[in-house]
């Protein structure tokens, strides 16, 4: 049944727009939890999803942090991958062609340590066929500013966003860090700099200690917390940001079931991303999509936008 519901004629309208980015439905996979897509192709049809956000890419390949990089916490996952990635050139040569051939709506997550690096990345990705949008990960240290994260300073967030926008004609989504006093302030800065949308949240800065070994569990000491544990915090931020900006908001954080996804869409998100849940169950995104459609049918919602709670 759900297969049919997904077709255009009967059933609710699922498509959403984030600036110039058109998604056939609001369910995407989050950066860092779906590889470069191909890894999942054995189990799910990625082209049925709204899109995928590939693992964060930098100008040069990065080797990542020293292990251990993972630790499970109550209903959460702590990771310190350290942004290991193949670098933009390998991505374009080795990963993008597969995504294009398989008609996967592809958002490229980019990261850098200076405004200049972000700008170069954007320029390199611009005009590449097969790339539908850029997601700018601003939870990175600004090496020129003593390592303060771009995502914790509205001015830095503004500047990165503007640089990326100027360097390319792709739709640009700015991905916000939750480790701030006032996330709306950062979202507004991104909006003012011309972002087509904001996505949130990235992981919460966290840690764990191995009491037998008497040292932090992660090789990197600190890591990012994701998964169901953080969902209530993510939802609150999506609620706040949706009311603070007028560009579309993409909700991320602990989304595991279709009910979770609906909470984010009701809070004001135009689309959502599934992260950790895909690590646990590769088909999580598709299950969420099917559950969403069934819910909309049962409750007579005609389009995604209608889900939003108006206050």
């Amino acid at each position: 049944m759900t297969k049919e519901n997904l077709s255009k004629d009967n059933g609710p309208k699922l498509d959403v727009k984030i600036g110039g980015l058109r998604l056939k439905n609001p369910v995407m996979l989050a950066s860092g939890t779906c590889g470069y897509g191909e890894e999942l192709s054995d189990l799910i049809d990625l082209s049925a999803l709204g899109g995928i956000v590939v693992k964060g890419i930098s100008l040069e390949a990065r080797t990542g942090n020293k292990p251990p990089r993972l630790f499970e916490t109550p209903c959460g996952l702590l990771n310190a991958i350290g942004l290991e990635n193949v670098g933009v050139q390998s991505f374009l040569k080795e990963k993008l062609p597969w995504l294009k051939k398989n008609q996967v709506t592809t958002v490229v997550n980019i990261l850098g340590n200076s405004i200049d690096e972000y700008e170069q990345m954007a320029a390199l990705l611009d005009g590449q066929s097969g790339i539908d949008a850029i997601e700018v990960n601003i939870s990175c240290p600004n090496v020129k500013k003593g390592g303060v994260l771009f995502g914790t300073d509205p001015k830095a967030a503004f500047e990165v966003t503007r640089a990326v926008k100027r360097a390319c004609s792709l739709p640009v989504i700015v991905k916000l860090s939750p480790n701030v006093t006032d996330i709306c302030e950062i979202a507004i800065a991104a909006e003012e700099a011309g972002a087509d949308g904001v996505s949130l949240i990235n992981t919460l800065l966290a840690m764990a200690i191995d009491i037998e070994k008497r040292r932090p569990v992660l090789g990197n000491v600190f890591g990012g917390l994701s998964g169901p544990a953080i969902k209530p915090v993510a939802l609150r931020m999506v609620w706040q940001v949706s009311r603070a900006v007028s560009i579309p908001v993409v909700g991320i954080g602990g989304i595991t079931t279709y009910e979770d996804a609906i909470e984010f869409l009701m809070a004001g998100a135009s689309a959502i991303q599934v992260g950790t849940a895909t690590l646990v169950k590769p088909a999580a995104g598709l299950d969420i999509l099917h559950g969403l459609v069934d819910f909309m049918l049962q409750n007579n919602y005609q389009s995604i936008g209608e889900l939003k709670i108006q206050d």
Partner: protein
Amino acid sequence: MKKRHFDKTARIIENLEIRPNIFLMRLACPDICSYAQPGQFCMVKSGLVQGLDPLLRRPLSIHRCHRDTGEMEFLFRVVGRGTKALSMQTSGQEVELLGPLGKGFDLKPTQIPIIVGGGLGVAPLLFLAETLSGKKGVAILGAVTKGELLRLEPFKKTGLEILVATEDGSFGNEGLVTSVLERLLAKLDDRAARDVAVFACGPHPMLRAVFSICNGYGVKCQVALETIMACGSGLCLGCAVRSSGGYMHVCKDGPCFDASRLLWE
């Protein structure tokens, strides 16, 4: 054979506590069974878990694979909440299985296999031994004491020569599997050393010792590694280990590695 993997709900046929806190679970999963190779693993979640804690599935080696019946076995120790929930399950109940995952042992150049399993390290090795069954070869199995030796009987049936080491000498040779291995390799001439391939699984210090012995005798050595995993399928890049060529990922590039490619700090 084309590499494929599946996400399946499988029914438990039997779940036996064969030693205190060590369980042998047999279940039906023809799909995974028909593609599985020795050394591969599955990400497993107990059907008893109602909530979201534990959150992740747990990696377990494929202990045995009966391709005719589509039945598989896992051998596991109760460590924490994930394996605890698996241990509480009974026949007829379900588990979720993602697999077969990873790269198994490389069997191509195997002339004379020597299998080395310490403790629960035998988990991936019985499937290997049964696959190599018929070949001339050796399996060295070790444990702290006789009562903790695992799976001796099915190993015997593979036709491989079985050597046992117990740390307290209560059965077989007294000492570690590595001493037995060392004595075995010492007897080889150079030509024989080239034909031998060692396959090892067990605690990390044991694997390091096995590699260093093999290295000394110029013998090829493959090891099955463990790391913490989230996805088991190459999505998260969390299961990194250091190799001579930079980080490798245990779930994708392993868990079975040519030991000479790893950095053994």
